[in-house]
């Protein structure tokens, strides 16, 4: 580069920490997201077991709990596997292994969509069984918390899909492919980790 | 130099500080005199909280004067003068330590009496404390006197009578939004929150004929400003008399106008919301009116209780208290009652003593 560059600089531009501005932005954004999900999860915990009427999440006074733990364990496994494929995609991107990167990205996207399919199925089933946003405090806390998580997975799927689409351009993802995929990976892993917490809090710990 | 003249001479007068002190003194006197003042002490809670408060006020005055004198003093002393360059000081560790420790000491001096007062105020009331339930409504206070088993023995509204020197514990409830129970002379406030079992316990210490004034202190909607109440602290014997009078059912009205009002009242929409014990009126939405004639105010402490004001209130309560939940009764405001009928009902209500 012949001239000095301001602002939104490429990765090789000098920064005080050595970390690219955009990656640092992602880290701080995820820090903010921690508080966002933290507040949603805290709300869930505060109201855990406070529902006045059913359906209840876990077995309650002889009534069977509405949560289908085996099914959601499966979807949790699916999302965890997507983190593995994400790692592979980052590896591929950083080492110039185009095919590996594209396939792993595709796999991550498909696993993410599968997870969303599970979630849609779960929401619909709950709806049929009479649990809605307004039914009780479990419904409100559960749907809002997992709904926002699902939205984040959806945004992640779109994010990764655009990277995948862009990688089919003649120039591919350009010289910064590894950087782009890695930054997307940070987001994806974060969303996974949040799910682990939600899964534990909602499904594994009974009321 | 022009800057100095414009900037500082007006502050340099020696009269400034004494003037300031005088203003403060007058101001505090005015504040103390006000009928709803926190500085008048008529309850043990307010008495206790003034222990840390006095400490805080003294320390606050010292700190403020220190900062003021140093800031002004340095500003004036070290103003730009020819031949005296600024001293390039970057800091002083010893000073930093000192002025870290000074606030620590001040905070400790505030914290100790604070916690002492807090624990005393929060102490559980004695088992024989009088039990009362105060319920916040938009925009009035309902008071229920309870017996030892927690059963209601008397329901009244907006005027609370308390015996001097006897501990009371008041359960604070709300049926709609958050209100706050505050009688400055007797105690600090505690909120009335729907779904929460809050309590306030205190002893009123000074009987007097005039009421202590209280007011809702949490924004509760349109007429938040008009949600007031009165506390009458009486000698125990007077209080017992009041109590036994209030427990009686209402008696039939005497006099033509009041009797007409009694009949109108029994046939009107009033009984859907109001109770007059001993009659068919058993509504529970609005204030209990069994002895409304004995109260000093109507409309939650906003109007003096007389025939004219009662009529005004009945005709169109929202005219007195914006947003009032009581529908207008006067024909002029969309209701069904004529002014003569309203006057009769007002006369009847005033007879309920």
């Amino acid at each position, binding site marked *: 580069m012949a001239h000095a560059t301001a602002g939104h600089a490429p990765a090789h531009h000098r920064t005080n920490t050595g970390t690219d501005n955009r990656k640092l932005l992602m880290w701080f954004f995820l820090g903010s997201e921690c508080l966002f999900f933290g507040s949603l999860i805290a709300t869930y915990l505060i109201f855990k077991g406070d529902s006045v009427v059913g359906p209840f999440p876990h077995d309650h006074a002889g009534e069977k709990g509405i949560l289908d733990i085996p099914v959601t364990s499966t979807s949790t496994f699916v999302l965890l596997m997507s983190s593995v494929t994400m790692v592979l995609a980052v590896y591929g991107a950083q080492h110039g292994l185009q095919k590996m990167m594209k396939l792993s990205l595709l796999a991550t996207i498909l696993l993410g969509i599968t997870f969303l399919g599970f979630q849609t199925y779960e929401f619909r089933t709950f709806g049929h069984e009479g649990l809605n946003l307004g039914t009780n405090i479990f419904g409100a806390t559960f749907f809002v918390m997992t709904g926002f998580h699902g939205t984040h997975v959806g945004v992640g799927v779109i994010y990764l899909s655009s990277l995948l689409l862009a990688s089919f351009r003649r120039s591919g993802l350009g010289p910064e492919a590894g950087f782009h995929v890695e930054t997307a990976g940070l987001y994806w892993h974060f969303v996974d980790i949040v799910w682990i917490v939600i899964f534990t809090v909602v499904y594994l710990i009974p009321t | 130099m022009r800057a100095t003249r414009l900037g500082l001479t007006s502050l340099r007068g020696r009269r400034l500080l004494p003037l300031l002190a005088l203003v403060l003194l007058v101001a505090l006197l005015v504040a103390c005199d006000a009928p709803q003042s926190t500085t008048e002490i008529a309850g043990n809670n307010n008495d206790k909280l003034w222990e840390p408060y006095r400490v805080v006020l003294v320390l606050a005055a010292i700190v403020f004067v220190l900062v003021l004198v140093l800031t002004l003093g340095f500003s004036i002393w070290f103003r730009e003068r020819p031949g005296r360059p600024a001293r390039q000081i*970057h800091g002083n560790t010893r*000073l930093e330590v000192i002025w870290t420790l000074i606030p620590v000491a001040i905070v400790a001096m505030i914290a100790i009496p604070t916690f002492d007062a*807090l624990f005393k105020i929060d102490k559980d009331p004695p088992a024989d404390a009088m039990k009362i339930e105060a319920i916040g409504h938009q925009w009035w206070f309902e008071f229920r006197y309870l017996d030892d088993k927690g059963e209601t023995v008397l329901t009244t509204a907006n005027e609370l009578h308390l015996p001097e020197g006897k501990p009371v514990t008041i359960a604070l409830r709300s049926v709609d939004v958050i209100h706050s129970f505050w009688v400055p002379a007797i105690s600090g406030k505690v909120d009335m929150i729907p779904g929460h079992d809050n309590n306030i316990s205190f002893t009123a210490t000074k009987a007097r004929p005039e009421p202590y004034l209280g007011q809702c202190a949490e*924004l509760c909607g349109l007429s938040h*400003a008009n949600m007031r109440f009165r506390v009458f602290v009486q000698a125990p014997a007077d209080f017992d008399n009041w109590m036994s009078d209030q427990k009686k059912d209402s008696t039939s009205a005497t006099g033509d106008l009041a009797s007409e009002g009694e009949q109108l009242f029994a046939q009107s929409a009033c009984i859907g919301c109001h109770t007059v014990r001993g009659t068919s009126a058993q509504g529970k939405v609005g204030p209990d009116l069994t002895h409304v004639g004995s109260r000093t105010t109507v409309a939650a402490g906003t109007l003096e209780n007389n025939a004219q004001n009662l009529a005004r209130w009945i005709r169109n309560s929202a005219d007195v208290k914006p947003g009032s939940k009581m529908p207008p009764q006067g024909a002029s405001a969309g209701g069904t009652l004529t002014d003569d009928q309203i006057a009769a009902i007002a006369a009847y209500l005033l007879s309920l003593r």
Partner: protein
Amino acid sequence: MATVAGTLARPANVGVWSWITTVDHKRIGVLYGITAFTFLLWGGIQALLIRTQLAVPNGTVIDAERFNQLFTMHALTMIFLAVMPLGAAFFNFLTPLMIGARDVAFPRLNALSYWVYLGGGLILTSSFFWDAPSAGWFNYVPLSGQTYTSDLGIDFYVVGLLTLGTSSLMAALNFTVTIINMRAPGLTMMRLPVFVWMTLIISFLLVLALPPLTVGLIQLLFDRNFDTHFFVPEAGGDPILWQHLFWVFGHPEVYILILPAMGIVSEVLPVFARKPLFGYPAVVFAGVAIAFLGWAVWSHHMFTTGMGTVPRTVFATNTMIIAVPTGIKIFNWIGTLYGGSIRFTTAMLFSIAFIVTFTIGGISGVMHASPPIDGQHQDSYFVVAHIHYVLFGGAVMGIFSGIYFWFPKMTGRFLSEGLGKLHFWLMFIGMNMTFFPMHFLGLAGMPRRIYTYDQGLDWGFWNMFATIGSYVIGISIIVFVINFFRSMRQPKTAPNNPWDAATLEWATTSPPPEHDFDVVPTVRARDPLWYDRDHGIEAPEPTGEHIHMPPPSYYPILMASGVALLGIGVLSHLALTALGAVVIIYSIWGWALEPTD
């Protein structure tokens, strides 16, 4: 200039469009400043209406409904639309200059922050045409629930704050990265100007404090519109949850409002005392400590909600401890005056006054840190006095100090010192007349947020006094506005460093060129310009190399209009929300593919 198919061409850098499409941090700072000042005037008019109603007992100027709307909107306007963005105006304009950078890390994101702020501000303010929010700025449920406030006002509140929160979050992320990553060579963290430190601290606070508010707003939105019962006790919910979520945000928010002013004062005092800031590390660490402790004190806003004795003890202790770093700052500012050669410019007068008036607010803060005392202060006029000594005596005085100080740098022109001093004295006297008597009113038992009071309560005198004071403040603002327009008609005569200041923004021209510095400066000390002056180091000669600056872009304002549509849709028809979403998606796409050169 190449375009990618489907994206908009980069606009030309002239005329009105050059402002609409600008990504220059200085221009964005100016936009923030002008917009925020306009909102400040509007919030001030609201305040004057409130004071007029309260001037005499049983006032009849404004009815109860309008009064509730006015005090709610006064707070929202002043906090979210005036004081916060005025802070943003300063840190937008100054941060890159002070750290020797050519722009912020993400110039287009910076423009987006501004346009989203403008959109949120217009949405919130336009509520007066329908129903303005009326449940107070902390908007407690159940009053703000559908049952008790069914009009659109609360929805305006929710949508407005969500939009403004988005804007603040983006700005905060941007400045965190900028300050951490883009400092000039030699500018270590412990050489950063205190103002930049404070910007960094509030950026962190915003990044972490906004999400709890966002969650609370979402829950309120769902309770009001989608049948949930987060805050309805009969259905298992709890109104206290809102208070916790609100104040977990709300208390750090207080520091977000005051820390920029502390930063400004820490820059102004040394320059006009002609000596370095006393105890720089202590001032910086005290700022960090305030921000850190600020997270552990939110429940002191809830002492009267029936919290247990032990939690109140803990929160009271934490709150009192904040007095320690605050005291350290105040003493260090006083120490900065000691031994100086003080020039009484208008900027300096505002800063000196700040020390005193802010101290009053700080002291009354310590008073209601004590829960028994707070039992009397909470929701009374004493608290109104306290917040105004912090936010007016603190934040606003600091901001005006900054305006007089940096005006030559921002415009190349000087504000008149004569009118400036008139402005200062009127404002100083007016604010003390307005807010000091409120302490007495609080002690006399006057609750806040009442639209009327009885003659017999003896509150009339001090209320009238305060109202007169508020008009004096109003006059002082008129003097400032006259001063502003007069000076804008003067020629640009300001030299690079008219005050003989020490920080990097004074090393470049007034106003600075688009690329800020011809040569990125090298920093050798904490007060770089004084060091260079005293050591005879000449500014480096421009090398004449081409400096590439990010070109202007349509996408920030386009995306912001999408965000605004999203919110307007929630308030009116969901079709608009869908349209907003389409605009946003298109903007992201175009944004991502827009060539950077």
